[in-house]
């Protein structure tokens, strides 16, 4: 007996275009296929539960930011002052710090992770690839507070003595690299984030690349492609999976607190120079939330958390748009459905 796949659009299955339900009775009580209905229903419940949990979180956050929203309104997004003593709160420096540090982290981590993943999947011999892969994933397990301490004691002095002066000398004409060189600032924050998200991106990309069918590689090689050109075909195939990996890494970068707050200088200011101290949204919440005792202060911190959600929405949306634009023209992704 042939069981028709219940989700194919047809009057008999009860489903219409795009998976929409047209006939509820048919869709959920299909003749002779309760197993599938139960399966789908159970999974649907989990997905719904996730939505409910996040909705509750957002509702709690929104409710608690109301006092701050009433007091500051839109000016909160453009305000630059953060003064708990006088009750002046503005989120702009934090938005700037979050966006720029995540950008720096992505600019460094994405090429690095892609390179590592390509090396491990396409080029390294199995015996070398497994241990290196384990080790790179191990980087993801280091607690953030340890990253932060390593940042203060090793990374920041290293950057202050060896890297930032070089950048200042060669690129000092750019406002990005001007100003006093202390090793503590937006630049160091971005770099430590890059180190933290690289293992995530590379681990996922590794699996994505490994899942590209061998036939793709064989076809390219058969046409006389060099190893790198074959790799390009594989990467094009894996584009949407790579995008997913990048978004995971980006999520970590935006929400990271302990490691960043120990090396970024925690100064709410907007400065063109990357060497100046800065402040991210996650850092200010982690720094000040437990000690904030008056209502407006707490509410302002919670509103900044709400803004973080918004920033994540927008950045994820932009990333997805970018990926869609880039992969629109390419053919043959490794998707199964």
């Amino acid at each position: 007996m042939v069981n028709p796949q219940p989700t194919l659009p047809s009057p008999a299955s009860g489903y219409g275009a795009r998976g929409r339900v047209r006939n509820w009775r048919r869709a959920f009580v299909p003749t002779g296929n309760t197993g599938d209905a139960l399966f789908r229903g159970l999974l649907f419940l989990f997905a719904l539960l996730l939505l409910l949990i996040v909705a509750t979180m957002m509702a709690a956050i929104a409710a608690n930011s109301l006092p701050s929203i009433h007091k500051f309104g839109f000016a909160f997004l453009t305000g630059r002052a953060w003064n708990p003593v006088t009750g002046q709160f503005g989120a702009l420096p934090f938005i700037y710090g979050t966006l720029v540090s995540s950008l720096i982290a992505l600019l460094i981590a994405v090429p690095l992770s892609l390179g590592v993943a390509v090396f491990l999947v396409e080029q390294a011999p199995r015996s070398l690839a497994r241990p290196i892969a384990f080790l790179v994933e191990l980087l993801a397990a280091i607690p953030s507070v340890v990253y932060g301490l390593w940042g203060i004691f090793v990374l920041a002095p290293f950057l202050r003595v060896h890297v930032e002066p070089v950048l200042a000398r060669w690129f000092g004409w750019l406002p990005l690299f001007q100003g006093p060189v202390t090793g503590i600032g937006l630049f160091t924050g971005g770099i430590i984030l890059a180190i933290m998200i690289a293992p995530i991106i590379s681990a996922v990309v590794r699996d994505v690349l490994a899942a590209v069918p061998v036939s793709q590689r064989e076809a390219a090689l058969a046409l006389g492609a060099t190893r790198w050109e074959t790799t390009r075909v594989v990467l094009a195939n894996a584009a949407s999976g790579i995008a997913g990996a990048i978004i995971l890494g980006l999520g970590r970068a935006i929400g990271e607190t302990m490691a960043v707050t120990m090396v970024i200088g925690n100064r709410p200011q907007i400065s063109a120079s990357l060497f100046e101290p800065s402040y991210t949204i996650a850092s200010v919440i982690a720094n000040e939330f437990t000690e904030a005792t008056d209502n407006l202060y707490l509410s302002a911190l919670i509103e900044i958390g709400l803004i973080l959600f918004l920033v994540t929405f927008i950045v994820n949306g932009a990333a997805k748009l970018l990926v869609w634009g880039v992969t629109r023209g390419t053919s043959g992704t490794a998707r199964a459905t």
Partner: protein
Amino acid sequence: MASSKNRRRMTLVLLCAPLLAFAAACSGQRGGVGPGTGSGGGTLNLLGAGATFPNPLYQKWLSEYGKLNPNTRIDYQSIGSGGGIKQIQAGTVDFGASDAPMKNDELKGAPGELLHIPTVLGAVVITYNLQGIAQPLKFSPDVIADIFLGKIKKWDDPRIRADNAGVNLPVTDITVVHRSDGSGTTAVFTDYLSKISAEWKEKVGADKSPQWPTGQGGKGNEGVTGMVKQQPDTIGYVELAYAMQSKLPVAQIKNSAGNFITASIEAVTAAAASSAASLPEDLRTSITNPAGANAYPISSYTYILVYKDQKDATKGKALVDFLWWGIHDGEKFAKDLQYAPLPDEVVKRAEAKINSITSGGKPLRQ
């Protein structure tokens, strides 16, 4: 298929065996079984949370007290003074701990009357990183305020030189390092600055998280210590123990009597002793910039917060006994860990407070 399934089961069992053995080895260390935080024939569990500053000393207290009273298991977790206040207000812990005393509206937010029991004293010190300078620098109060206000920008400023004749100060910029997280240490330091500088009081004020006019923010005492230690030409403020343990230089500060005082345990206790007479009834006070020839100007109490009326008499009794032990026997351990013990007059006041703790109307200490 069956054989590989069995193989998998075997491997699972083999893997679990060392785990079970480990657990068995560890369980031999337990003090006793105690489900729930209630009282009863077995052990009693108490929870405290709050300030990070006294954490090492409280851990010592809990360990020593635990040796004498193995049936009372007390845990203390440092989540910050604000956290301690919030948790005792919410009733999730049995006692809180805070460096800065609670404000009036915070006290109103608690479901019962909260008592402040002072336990030890701490000092906030000025530390710096200047290569090649061996002896400790001297600072006048107004110089400190202006450095942190950003008005004095260079190390060889004439006002710094005036206090430090003969010292070869470099011609570099001062990098100020302050705290980024809300903290009792900051509250004490800014309280001191507000007392000795009208400009600071007006521009910045005294608070756990003020808006700093200049400088980088380090997370926690250890963040500031690390940043000062790793960057040249920095100046910052930390608790005394951190500067001493990291072997960072500690500045001498001119106190209200005009003497340059090095932060030391004796100088801090002197600060408390000279202000003991003016301790208010609820023991909430600030002892920065006190009178007294040998008093260190930036000292502070740290408090344990307990409810005056304990709901559970057994737990209340255990708590009261622990606090009594703490302010008497516990003070002996303070000096080795670089905390200043309470002067005798203050111990008497704390005793009175502990004696006033009741449960169901009856005082818990007979």
